[in-house]
């Protein structure tokens, strides 16, 4: 029999459509503007405090829709978007310093839909406002840092074995040590190569110009770079969490870049200071009078550039060994940071201080910065901007070691309570394994976001309406089939995007609109073919059958090529291009399903195995 589907095909189509409907429904319930309250210590706020916030909001004429507790945080849902900012300020005033108040959009999906774990599409920054940063991780600095640590350990080793060396030098991925004789160099090479297998060793020169050159192997370099990126990702996530932003995104992009998106944040300056801060601490001993100059460095004080001190080049520990840190004031009301070290850090600190009681220990504040200079190419006259990274080191304190230090101690000498608080935050969240630089930044105001959604939706609606009218006018009854398929296509597209957790962006909406225009293509191909077969004198049933069969290869070829382009777009694209590619690819797949299967089912149900006199096409 022509034009009949077996029952299982109808059932399959029905199941797909029902599933599509369920997972697309949550998008009809717009998220509530909300403020999110959590205590700074990570505990749940007491109900009493939340009630105080609620009554304060009501006094200021802000309508509260509901409040609820989830994952140790309180969400207060508001009635209107406009109240969100003032509500945050009021809540922050009421709760004071020991709570974090953040803006949030709370899902409003009804419970029965949540039971299917259905949730709406997440909106991109261009639709909800916020800041977007693109950060470049300085891989050269990551290598240099690692080499410095190795150099320090090697010097330690050589000293303990009483091998005399003259100079250590770090350049690119090589580390070289000068010796006064070939014999010392060969002994050193034997010792060092046993403990540091990651280097390729080479001996250069002889006698007084003996030199041991160690180069990191390719594999080690890529390991160090991966480690640097992953460590930075973790640190940035910690920092962003400390900022109290709801639904932040911190993601690796390409070999050396990191994307940070903070929805709802408008104060970019503060966000950037915390995200981009590269501050760290180093604890070092002051040099003795008889220390050889090859082992010392001179540093000036941060708050008094006239004062300086001669320090050992070797570092006892860095801020990386800090397990927790908080800020407070000392007896004289000056800001201080209380530090707890982890196990290894504590042991190292204890060992270093125990044997050096009476000596001075210095705390160095380190910041990675960069400076841009415009360089004009003398030949072409082209201006390029060169970034010159540099490290700023300044002493924040130099104090006599009174007794052996353990796991916890405090440091003073900071400029202001704000600086102490930020330093504590940075030490808590961990330092960056390699310095980072901002290479791209976008701030989208919340009003622009709302406007984009409104305009996007309007153009989807109008575009859909135009296509529907066109198809009706041209294909009559078959136009109805195509239009039903188009509506189902939109439903499925939204459902798949929600299920995949894809982010909807403005170019994504453009992709949806374009997909709608192109989605009818398959049906147009089929319907034109049916018309043609009718003109060629086939019977109605044969014409329908032949129309679907013969159009099939064209449809598949045409869609596969478009899909190939969409996939390439996705793999090379960033940001807006990616969003567009995602909707386009999903749209191609869903439109093939609806055009080939769903309209066929409708046509079969209407015309299949019945005598039909005239086809309204």
């Amino acid at each position, binding site marked *: 029999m022509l034009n009949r589907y077996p029952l299982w095909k109808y059932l399959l189509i029905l199941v797909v459509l029902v599933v599509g409907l369920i997972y697309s429904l949550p998008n009809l319930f717009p998220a509530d503007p909300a403020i999110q309250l959590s205590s700074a210590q990570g505990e749940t706020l007491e109900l009493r405090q939340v009630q105080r916030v609620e009554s304060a909001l009501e006094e200021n004429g802000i309508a509260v829709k509901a409040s609820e507790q989830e994952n140790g945080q309180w969400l207060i849902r508001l009635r209107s978007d406009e109240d969100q900012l003032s509500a945050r300020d009021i809540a922050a005033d009421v709760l004071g310093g020991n709570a974090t108040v953040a803006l949030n959009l709370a899902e409003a999906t009804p419970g029965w839909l949540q039971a299917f774990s259905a949730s709406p599409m997440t909106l991109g920054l261009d639709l909800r406002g916020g800041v977007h940063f693109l950060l*470049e991780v300085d891989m050269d600095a990551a290598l240099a840092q690692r080499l410095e640590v190795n150099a320090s350990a090697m010097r330690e080793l050589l000293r303990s074995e009483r091998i005399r060396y003259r100079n250590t030098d770090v350049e690119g991925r090589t580390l070289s040590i000068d010796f006064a004789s070939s014999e010392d160099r060969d002994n050193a090479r034997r010792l060092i190569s046993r403990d540091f297998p990651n280097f390729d060793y080479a001996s250069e020169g002889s006698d007084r110009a003996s030199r041991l050159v160690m180069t990191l192997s390719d594999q080690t370099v890529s390991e160090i770079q991966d480690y640097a990126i992953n460590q930075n990702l973790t640190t940035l996530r910690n920092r962003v969490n400390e900022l109290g932003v709801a639904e932040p995104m911190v993601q690796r992009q390409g070999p050396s870049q990191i994307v940070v998106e903070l929805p709802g944040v408008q104060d970019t300056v503060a966000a950037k200071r915390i995200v981009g801060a590269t501050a760290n601490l180093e604890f070092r001993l002051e040099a003795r009078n008889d220390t050889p100059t090859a082992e010392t460095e001179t540093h000036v004080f941060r708050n008094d550039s006239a004062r300086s001190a001669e320090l050992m080049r070797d570092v006892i520990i860095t801020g990386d060994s800090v397990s927790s840190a908080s800020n407070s004031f000392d007896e004289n009301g000056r800001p201080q940071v209380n530090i707890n070290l982890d196990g290894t850090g504590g042991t190292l600190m204890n060992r270093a201080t125990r044997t050096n009681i009476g000596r001075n220990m210095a705390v160095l504040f380190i910041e990675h910065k960069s400076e841009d200079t415009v360089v004009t190419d003398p030949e072409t006259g082209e201006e390029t901007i060169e970034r010159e990274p540099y490290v700023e080191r300044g002493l924040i304190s130099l104090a006599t070691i009174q007794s052996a230090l353990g796991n916890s101690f405090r440091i003073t000498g900071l400029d202001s309570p704000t600086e102490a608080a930020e330093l504590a935050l940075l030490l808590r969240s961990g330092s960056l394994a390699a310095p980072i630089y901002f290479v*791209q930044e976008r701030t989208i105001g919340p009003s622009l976001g709302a406007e984009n959604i409104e305009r996007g939706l309007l153009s989807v609606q109008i575009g859909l309406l135009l296509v529907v009218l066109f198809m009706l006018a041209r294909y009559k009854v078959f136009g109805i089939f195509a239009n039903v398929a188009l509506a189902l296509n939109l439903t499925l597209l939204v459902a798949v995007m929600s299920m995949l957790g894809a982010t909807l962006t403005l170019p994504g909406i453009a992709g949806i609109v374009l997909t709608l225009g192109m989605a009818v293509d398959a049906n147009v191909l089929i319907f*034109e073919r049916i018309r043609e077969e009718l003109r060629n004198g086939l019977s109605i049933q044969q014409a329908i059958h032949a129309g679907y069969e013969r159009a099939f290869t064209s449809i598949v070829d*045409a869609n596969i090529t478009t899909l190939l382009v969409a996939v390439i777009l996705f793999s090379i694209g960033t940001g807006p291009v990616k969003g567009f590619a995602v909707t386009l690819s999903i749209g191609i797949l869903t439109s093939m399903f609806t055009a080939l299967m769903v309209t066929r089912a409708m046509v079969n149900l209407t015309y299949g195995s019945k005598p039909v006199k005239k086809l309204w096409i």
Partner: protein
Amino acid sequence: MKPLSHLQIDFMGRRKLAFIVSALMLIVSIGALAFQQLNLGLDFTGGTLIEVRYGAAPSLDAIRQLMVESGFRDVSVQTFGASTEVLIRLQQAFDPDVGSDVVNLLRTSGESVNLVRAEFVGAQVGDQLRDQSGLGLMVALGVVMLYVAFRFQYKFAIGALLALLHDVIIVVGIFALFQLEFDLTVLAAILAVIGYSLNDTIVVYDRIRETIRTSHIDNMPQIFNEAINATLSRTLATSGTTMLVLVALLLLGGDMIENFAIALLIGIGVGTFSSIYISGALLLPLKLSREDLIPTRKVVDEEEEELP
């Protein structure tokens, strides 16, 4: 010979005229690209862009003057959409704080100024993006060509590739000619045009292949005419619906996707023309013959068996 469609336009007979029109468009496009160059957007050049909203329409000259007096170089100030929205562009890169600086500066004149968006793109990112986009375009064209060569025959692949290059050059050329801003979304639109125009071309090719197999004449121009006429109503219907939607997007979608819609509209217009004229007509100078499709005979047989 039974007519395959009620419409019979002699497309191939007028192919010389079509080639001349295409050649003219290509020359103008390439000329525009060479002499005017593309007005590359922030995404590619790097720099800073600040969009602010004033309470009342401000004087652009005053803003420009204020900016220059405060030491900003290469300032471009223009309204964006409404007269109260002002877009300020600065070529100076790598100063991420400039956004808030500018807003504070504009506020000093006592007017209410709100930041709508601030974008900052490092020059390095722009370069990287330009390289990446060029590479992406090449890869897309290459993969598509391979697919067409595999599904059809290499002469079809050459025809399709030339038609696609034709479309891309003309769209980019028009952007250069009218100095429309070429940013990332426009690049996405061009890739979509490639997909779309290819879609059109494949449908025509599919029909050419089918007609070559089923008809018994060897007159290629006549076969092409039949195939193109048979798909003509489909081509126009699909372009029609897509363009309807794009017009809606252009008029209602807002300023941020205006250029995206323009690029697609031009692209689909040119793509429709090229799938009718260029990709089909190009097979004639490439001397496509029935024998070219013989190696695919085995595939052909299988496909034909499925037909009733």
